[in-house]
């Protein structure tokens, strides 16, 4: 089972974060065969067990030249039924070159040094071990 373990000076403050690269999905690239490819969007992702779905920062899909493939509705602690676009993307976990491809939701991530929330839709495929006393976490697929 491919996995990576990340250690940080203060896991409690920073959270379980990983570098990722976001790209158009292989499904789109193989079906449409665009003449030019966008550069992968380098981002930092937080593994968020409080998120039922995976989110990318608003604007990333536009930067990659993607059109939405759906609309969904989200609830946050401060709002209900906010309509958000969905995109079909792939992203690469830089630590171990593992690729995820699927539908993600686009929303505004406020005041955080992260551009992606890895939600429970992806964690449903994974083993996530948070070792607080060691300031480390492991993600395996």
């Amino acid at each position, binding site marked *: 089972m491919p996995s990576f373990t990340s250690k940080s000076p203060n896991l409690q403050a920073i959270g379980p974060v990983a570098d990722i690269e976001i790209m158009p999905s292989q*499904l*789109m690239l193989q*079906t*449409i065969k*665009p003449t030019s490819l966008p550069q992968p969007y380098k981002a930092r992702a*937080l593994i*968020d067990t*409080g*998120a*039922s*779905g995976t*989110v990318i920062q608003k604007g990333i899909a536009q930067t990659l*030249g*993607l*059109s*939405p*493939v*759906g*609309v*969904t*509705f*989200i*609830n*946050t*602690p*401060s*709002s*209900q*039924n*906010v*309509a958000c*676009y969905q995109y*079909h993307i792939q992203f690469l976990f830089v630590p171990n070159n593992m690729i995820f491809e699927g*539908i993600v*939701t686009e*929303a*505004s*991530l*406020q005041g*955080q040094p*992260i551009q992606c*929330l890895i*939600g429970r839709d992806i964690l449903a495929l994974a083993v996530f071990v948070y070792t607080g006393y060691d300031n480390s976490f492991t993600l395996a697929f």
Partner: protein
Amino acid sequence: MVMTEIKTLSTELETFNAKRNELVQKALGKFVLIKNGDLAGIFDTPTDAIREGYIKYGNSPFLVKQILPSEPPLNFTSNLILG
């Protein structure tokens, strides 16, 4: 309950909502592909529906929705999203 407005895909959402009951009767749990006011197909998986969307419409907006009587919203409890 607050419902925000969106522009792109609003026609497709209206089409889906208008046909939802009929779709639930005949294809519960499957995935529908809608472009403008046209129902372009029903598929077993979202990947199949999206592939067909890319084949038919290229990189332009289209709507893929699972056919359910009501749609549970995604929930975010950590307050990182500006809603």
